[in-house]
């Protein structure tokens, strides 16, 4: 990581913020150094989208990426991680597609507890502010997502449940 930084100086990075704004909502913000037209394109053209959605640092690879970006159209992303025998699929439907300004999609792999994701693209001069807003159906659904450790299909999602180890410790210790 540091070696790369030395060999190819990267322009100053814009900050990414994340906040739980209510019982049911998560908001992520980031500014990009380009017009909304271009940033929107990178979110809606599969061949561009797949270049950034699954960074190599996560240890995941994207097996397939199908996106029919129009109102009512569906998407399906299939990932693989070395540590897991089965690939994982993430899928849903586009509810709103407003070129260069707004995308809304469902996250259906989680069943009824899945969030609805709204992404807005707001151009400010030569930059674009992107706001990702996840709205969960209930407080319990978001609490559940957090408790499961899942941040969207990455290896960190499979971490430990302290309580279960305590229960386990009691049972195997006997």
């Amino acid at each position, binding site marked *: 990581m540091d070696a790369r930084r030395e060999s190819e100086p990267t322009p100053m990075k814009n900050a990414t913020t994340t906040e739980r704004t209510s019982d049911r909502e998560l908001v992520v913000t980031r500014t990009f150094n380009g017009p909304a037209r271009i940033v929107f394109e990178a979110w809606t053209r599969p061949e561009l989208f797949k270049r950034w959605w699954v960074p190599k640092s996560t240890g995941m690879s994207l097996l397939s990426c199908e996106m029919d970006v129009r109102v009512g159209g569906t998407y399906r992303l299939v990932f693989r991680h070395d540590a*897991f025998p089965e690939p994982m699929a993430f899928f849903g439907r586009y509810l709103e597609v407003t070129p260069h300004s707004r995308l809304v999609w469902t996250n259906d792999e989680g069943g009824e507890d899945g969030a609805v994701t709204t992404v807005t693209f707001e151009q400010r001069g030569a930059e674009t502010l992107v706001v990702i807003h996840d709205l969960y159906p209930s407080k319990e659904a978001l609490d559940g997502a957090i408790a499961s450790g899942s941040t969207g299909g990455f290896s960190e999602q*499979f971490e*430990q449940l302290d309580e*279960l180890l305590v229960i386990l410790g009691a049972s195997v210790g006997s």
Partner: protein
Amino acid sequence: MVQYSRARLDASFAALSDATRRGVLEQLGRGDASITDLAEKFHLTLTGMKKHVGVLEQAGLVRTEKIGRVRTCKLGPRRLHEETAWIERYRQLWESRFDELDKVVEELKQKEMVDGRKKRK
């Protein structure tokens, strides 16, 4: 108050329903072990043990780490999932995505400039 999702609990209890897997956890409680070690100890094939470890890993009960050609298994960190820690991991996930997205945006900008120049000629 931390609540656990039902799917997560189901996976964990399913993982614990098997005597070999409970044995593996007990073993890992005493110290880290490679999949080969575990296979020998439980008289299983490497493939058989990999499956068991995979189930435990998916349930979040075990972590594995590959060093060279050896995959070492260990119990996960013994800590509660704090919301703040999760939100920070979530932020890091998006940050690493956006670092890549920056490159795509930069490339598209360059391409537009070049195409624009061509059109003007």
